[in-house]
């Protein structure tokens, strides 16, 4: 995904972001991202905590 697609999703699609944190494999399936095992493993290892307040910091409401 590009940074543009990523930030749009993180800022305005709460369900999508929660799925990324919880289960990137399921997210890949549901949204046709075609991620391989290595990519999914790498996404699982990421600490997403700092992103949690990004939408709030930029004054966006999750829709």
């Amino acid at each position, binding site marked *: *995904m*590009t*940074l*543009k697609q*990523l*930030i*749009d999703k*993180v*800022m*305005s699609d709460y369900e999508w972001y929660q799925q*990324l944190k919880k289960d990137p494999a399921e997210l890949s399936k549901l949204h046709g*991202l075609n*991620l391989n095992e290595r*990519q999914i493993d*790498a*996404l699982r290892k*990421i*600490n*997403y905590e*700092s*992103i949690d*307040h*990004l939408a*709030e*910091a*930029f*004054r*966006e409401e999750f829709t």
Partner: protein
Amino acid sequence: MILRGTSSLTDPLEMRPDGQLRELVNDACARIHAEFVRRAPFLGEQVRSWMANLSPTGKAPEYFLRPHSFPLLNLPWWAAKSFADEPDCEFLADVVYSTINGYYYIRLLDNLMDGHDTVELNILPATAFFHTEFQAVYQRYFDATHPFWEVFRTAWFSASEAVTRELKLDHIRQEDFERVTVAKLAGAKIPVAAVGFHYGAGERLRCWEEFTLALSRWSQMEDDLFDWHNDLRHGKTSYFLTEASRHKGFESVEAWVICEGFQRGMEALRKDLSVLRRLAPSLHSLDVVRYLDSREAILERLTVRIGGAFDVLKEVARITEPKAQACDWIEFSKSEGS
């Protein structure tokens, strides 16, 4: 288009409004409702819900007391405290009442002009109330020939002129930002000038006016930076987004903000905060110093927090699209340009 300060992030370093000001704001909102009940109850009921809905807590006074907001009501309050040991509470209650009415007048029109309106068209006649109450209060204190009215006219009309000009701008370059965007906030000088004249502050009023203008400029820059994604989504222009379009090269605005723009925006805010600090001593106001300390602490915390979040986003982009390295285009464009 006007400073809304909608962030709800909480911070232990935030400066809380003092109890006396809180009371004046509560009283002013209650006074607006009471005047409506007495003079225009049908319209007043709709205005009451509109005022409540603007506030994230559903309580109108809270809207004006949030620590991230531009200190529109604090400035005249702090100025009064710097001019006199015992502030004239009746006068300050009137200033707060006037300023809140002035704010609602602008906000109602602004929501309509921005296309953010919900019920604003239905309650448009309430502008008659808000404008009258905003202005009429000062007639008790300043006769028709008093120099206050020249400040009032100049500030109020130049703000209206600037709002209209900004609507026509597709891009906001630095000169537009200084001449138009900042000028929209000139109305903030009115309550400060009222306080200065009331207390006979003389030359010190000029210092407060200069600080008010500089703080308006700073707050507008902050608003542009933190509203960038919202503005982008709604097709609004701003100085920050104009700069983004100029610098992004072949990449998206989003990528530029994440890789470079946000840091640049924060550096500009830091630099301008030091300008505000240089103006502060002439005000003799500990409240202002505390306010600037609090803003600086919030800025530093956000720099770390958002910088960390952007690093994570870059990592996710690198994993999900390994061929397109997250900030490569930005780096490439910069090296080509240099």
